[in-house]
């Protein structure tokens, strides 16, 4: 279960992470730059160090908190993560949360 009441989801939104993913969703040139050099691409955005690390580590647990879930799904698509893998990794988070 996702308890929306327990956290202020709006407060957790990370603008620059969201912006980066949104920009990737808008322009194939950004996707090409991203695929070529993630670090260089991220340098375009004032990302907090912990967000940057979470991106580099594909840390879904952290990323899901800070960006809209629809954008996140798109993001893992352009990263080349298959849908079954994304589902498996998301479901693993659920089990952790439940337990």
């Amino acid at each position, binding site marked *: *279960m*996702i*308890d929306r009441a327990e956290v202020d989801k709006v407060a957790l939104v990370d603008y620059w992470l969201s912006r980066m993913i949104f920009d990737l*969703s808008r322009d194939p040139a950004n996707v090409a730059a991203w695929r070529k050099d993630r670090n260089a691409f991220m340098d375009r955005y004032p990302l907090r160090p912990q967000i940057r690390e979470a991106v580099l580590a594909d840390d879904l647990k952290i990323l899901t908190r800070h960006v*809209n879930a*629809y*954008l996140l799904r798109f993001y893992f698509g352009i990263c080349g993560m298959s849908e079954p893998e994304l589902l498996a990794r*998301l479901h693993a988070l659920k089990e952790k949360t439940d337990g």
Partner: protein
Amino acid sequence: MAEFVGSFAASHGPLIARDWDKLTPRVRDWLGGSFAELGRRVAASRPDVLVIVAPDHWTNFFIDNLPTVCVGIGAEHDGPPEPFLKPRFPHRKLPGDGRFARHLLRTALTSGFDPALSHHLALDHGFCLPLWLMKLDPLPAIVPFVLNSLEDPMPSFARCLDWGRLIAKAVASYPEEVRVAVLGSGGLSHSIGEPTMGEVEEDLDRDCLRLLREAPDASLASSLEEKLRNAGNGGHEIRNWVVAHAAAGSRGFDAFAYAALPEVFVGCGFAEWKTAS
């Protein structure tokens, strides 16, 4: 005088288009048949204008300027930008009705509402997937009514009822001889990019459908707030059904088809409200 000729609702989901050719025949036939039945009902109401209430799936808007409600007042709109839908619904432009949309906008602004406006929108799968499968020919003029049901904080269910009534008021006060219908697009339960991704909550969906059929407005709003609070994110699109519900006068709800379809990640429902006319 304009006439309110019908109110309808349908689910949508990208996978319905993306995986159409790979769906099991049972699911594809059921979806195709249900959307076709919806299309027949919409066509039977002979709308000149179809107000589609749907979210924007990060197509036009971002969190640097995220409207709660935005009315598309353009004379035309761009077709869907999604690669999975473009080939199936290859309309590069869809007709709008700027005149009615401006009347709706002004009616809202002078009745205690605060819509954003857009002179130019692209209509994503929330708008175009039902249009594709309903096969309306010709397309009525589309007035996009973009309601935030995608990112917190969203409008309350009570406010969605207010907005539905406002649409009815705008139709009733429009001096042109135009037939206007409403389509709420989205829901029922689904979850995208969350730990519960792919799950369909059939019990929740049937509860929501029952509430739309039976509950008076006040308890409808509070019950839906309660039920959706911890549901998958996509379920929040039922806000768009609630707008259609109130536009129809909050009565005569007929959910003529429902199936929980994990194959496309969505609890798929189709409904028509009986209207006065």
